Structure formats: structure tokens, C-alpha cells
């Protein structure tokens, strides 16, 4: 290993963390934007929420995972704030242990911010995975006007579409999931089985940008730093680009050497 490589190995991660911290502190320049220019997903979500009755009863299937929750957290909090602003009654249920831990944390946050505990009921953790969903579906359409699924774990929107919708027709199904679930959820959006979904960070940012909840304590205290995201992505692009370039150069040199022989 060369001295340069050794230095990079030792100081690279520290430099990256410092650059990310700087990006987090500095204001976002106008040339950067997280929200997708296509407003369809955000519009569909707003339309689906508008279609819910006043003081709607909404079941929140809260099963994100710890790894990707940071990606959807600002959107989840914005959606919950939007629902509460529309006087919705929320009932949280989780089918995974991670989802339960995150649901306890989010409900605790809502109560800390002054939300009446009676409008954010806790149905707790239900064991049994798909069997639990089948059990939940019994009489669901009589008790709830809509379902919001916060996905990321094994039991995401796909499981709700498969197990609950056939047994609870007429209930709107909305979803917030990390981008990794996009190929899984998009077909259900196309068929109308999922009424609206916010999947990519850009769609989430577009939805948050359209909300009129300025200053609400239920929202994230600040939006994700687009500059920090860009710095991280550029670092990744640089590392991968350098590795791919080095591989291409090595291949070219090898080919030339063989030709010269």
C-alpha cells in the first residue's frame, strides 16, 4: 500500500464525516433540490387524504426497519401531522419487533408534542405475520376509513394488499416506504390497489413541500440537508468512479501489452 493510500484509508472517513457536518451546517444552494419535479405522487397522496371523511379513523400499520427509517422519517412525520391536522383518529399497530420499537418511539414523540393520547391509540404488537393481518382484516372496513402502511420491513404494503384488501374492500390504502420497495409497490399503484404512495425521498420531499403546516411541532425540526446528501453521493461517485477508472486503465494496459508482444 502506498503512503497516499494509507493516508486516505486513515483520514478519508474522518474527512467525509467533517464534510458531511459542514454540508449539514451550511445553507442549501438554489441549484440543489431534493423534491422530484414530477408532482404526481404527492398529488395522489393529497387527493387520497382529501377523499377521507372528516375525523377519519385511520389504521397505521407501522413496520419500518431501523436501517431505512431515516430515509422515510420526515415524510412519515409529515403524513401523521397532516392526518392529525385533518382531525383523523389514528390507531398504531405493528407486526414486527423493529416496527413496534419505532412505533413506540413515534407515539411517544406525538404525545410529547401535545397530541391527545386518545387520538393516537396503540393497538400494540401483533404476532403471527400474515395470520395477524388476516385477523386484523376481520371487520376492518367497519372500523376504519383508511390504512396507512409505513413499510420497510418484511410486512409492507405488499402483505397488506395480499392479506387485508381482499377481506376489507372499500378502505383506502396509503403507503410510505423506502425506495428499495419501489419495484414492489409501483405495480399496486398502477392497479389502484394502493391508492397513493410516497416511495422515493424526492416524492416525500415534494409532499412535504406542499403541506401548509408551517411551524407545526409534529414535523421534523428541519428538512434533510440536500447539501450533505450531495456530498455523500459525490464521495460515493468519486470512489466508485476511481475504482472503475482504475479497472478500465488496467484492462487497457493489459490489452496493449498483449498486443505489443
Amino acid at each position, binding site marked *: 500500500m502506498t503512503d497516499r493510500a494509507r493516508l486516505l484509508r486513515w483520514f478519508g472517513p474522518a474527512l467525509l464525516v467533517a464534510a458531511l457536518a459542514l454540508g449539514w451546517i451550511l445553507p442549501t444552494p438554489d441549484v*440543489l433540490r431534493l423534491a422530484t419535479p414530477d408532482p404526481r405522487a404527492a398529488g395522489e397522496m393529497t387527493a387520497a387524504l382529501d377523499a377521507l371523511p372528516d375525523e377519519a379513523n385511520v389504521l397505521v400499520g407501522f413496520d419500518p426497519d431501523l436501517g431505512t427509517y431515516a430515509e422515510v422519517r420526515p415524510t412519515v412525520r409529515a403524513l401523521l401531522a397532516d392526518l392529525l391536522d385533518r382531525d383523523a383518529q389514528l390507531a398504531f399497530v405493528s407486526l414486527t419487533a423493529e416496527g413496534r420499537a419505532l412505533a413506540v418511539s413515534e407515539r411517544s414523540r406525538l404525545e410529547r408534542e401535545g397530541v391527545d393520547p386518545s387520538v393516537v391509540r396503540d393497538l400494540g404488537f401483533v404476532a403471527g405475520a400474515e395470520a395477524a393481518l388476516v385477523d386484523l382484516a376481520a371487520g376492518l372496513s367497519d372500523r376504519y376509513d383508511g390504512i396507512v402502511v409505513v413499510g420497510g420491513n418484511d410486512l409492507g404494503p405488499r402483505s397488506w394488499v395480499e392479506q387485508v384488501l381482499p377481506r376489507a374492500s372499500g378502505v383506502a390504502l396509503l403507503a410510505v416506504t423506502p425506495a428499495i420497495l419501489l419495484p414492489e409497490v409501483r405495480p399496486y399503484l398502477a392497479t389502484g390497489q394502493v391508492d397513493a404512495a410516497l416511495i422515493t425521498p424526492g416524492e416525500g420531499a415534494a409532499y412535504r413541500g406542499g403541506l401548509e403546516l408551517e411551524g407545526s411541532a409534529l414535523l421534523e425540526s428541519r428538512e434533510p440537508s440536500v447539501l450533505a446528501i450531495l456530498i455523500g453521493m459525490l464521495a460515493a461517485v468519486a470512489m466508485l468512479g476511481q475504482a472503475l477508472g482504475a479497472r478500465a486503465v488496467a484492462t487497457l494496459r493489459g490489452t496493449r501489452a498483449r498486443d505489443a508482444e
Partner: protein
Amino acid sequence: MRRPTFTALVVIIGVLLLADLLVANDSLGLLAAIVVDAAILVAAGAALAAVGALGARRLGDLWRRRGDPIGAVLVVVGMATILIAGLRPGSDGSADPAVRWLLSALLIPLGASLFGLLFVTTLLAARRSLAGRSPSAIVLVAAAFVTLLLLLPLAGAGGGWLAGAAGWALDVPVGAVFRGLLIGVGLLTAVFAARTLLGIGMADD
């Protein structure tokens, strides 16, 4: 020797649940509900047994001084802390402030930090995989490189073009591959389920 009990059980339960989905009948619904409740109880019991087995395994590791003692201590102390916070006399269970604090201030940030490290480790793994000169690794890293470029959060006309291209890439090639995998998994699941229902085992192949 083939045991027909499991197959028969799967056939009966599967037909019962399907019939309940298709036919509106109170008695059938009641029977299906009992079966579903039984499945939930079995799953809950299995989950508790798994947690108990994990704890017992780690305690056994400590007792016999084998494996990773620090990891074992952390697992046992973590489990004991959550159990004491949630089950001590006067506790509100998962609504108890101590449990909430443990989750919100400790477990979730720790979990997120560990997953955050994936950023660095994934990049290092990508570089190492390229060093192996495997064609699949080159394709994988090149695809990741292009996807990252398309997802750059830029504003203006350039950003709009990138976002459009990223949307197309996610919807068409990435979506096609992923959906192909899902369809493959679905077909295999259906085949496996049909084999189970018909009582066909490995020995019949």
C-alpha cells in the same frame, strides 16, 4: 417414510381459509378465525421461544467461556434491561417512560448508526469486488455508479432531466428485474405449495 399429517393439515387449513375468503358463511368464518388465532398463538410462542433460546445460548456461552464474551454480555444485559423496564412491578409495559427512553434514545439511534456505517462498508466492498476482476462485479458497480449520478439532487432543467432518467431507470430496467425476481419467487412458492398440497416430496423426484 412420508408422514401425511402435515400435508393433511395444510390441505385442510388452506381449503378452509380459501373457502372463507370466497363464501360468506358465519360458521365457516368462525372456523377460519379459530385457525387464524391458533396460527397467531403458535407464531407468538415461536417468537418467545426464539428469544428465550437466544438468551439461554448467550448465557451458556458465558458459563462455558466460549464464543464472544463481550457480545454475549451485551445481549444478556440488553434483554434484561428491556425486560426489567417493561415487566417490573408498576411498569406500564411498552408505554413505560423507561422503555420509551431505551427505545428512543438508545436502541433506535444505535441501530441507525450501525446501518449508517453501511455507506462506508458498501463502498469499500464495491472497490474490493472490482479488484477481483469479476464481470458481474464490474456490471454491479457500474450500475450503482450510473444510478448515483442519475439521483444527484440537482435543480433546474438538468436536474429535471436527471430525475426523469432516474424515474425511468427505476421503473423500467430495475423494476423489470425486481419484478421478474418476485414473479419467479411467486411461481416457485406456488409450485412448492402445490407439491405440499399434493403430498409430493423430494423422494418422488
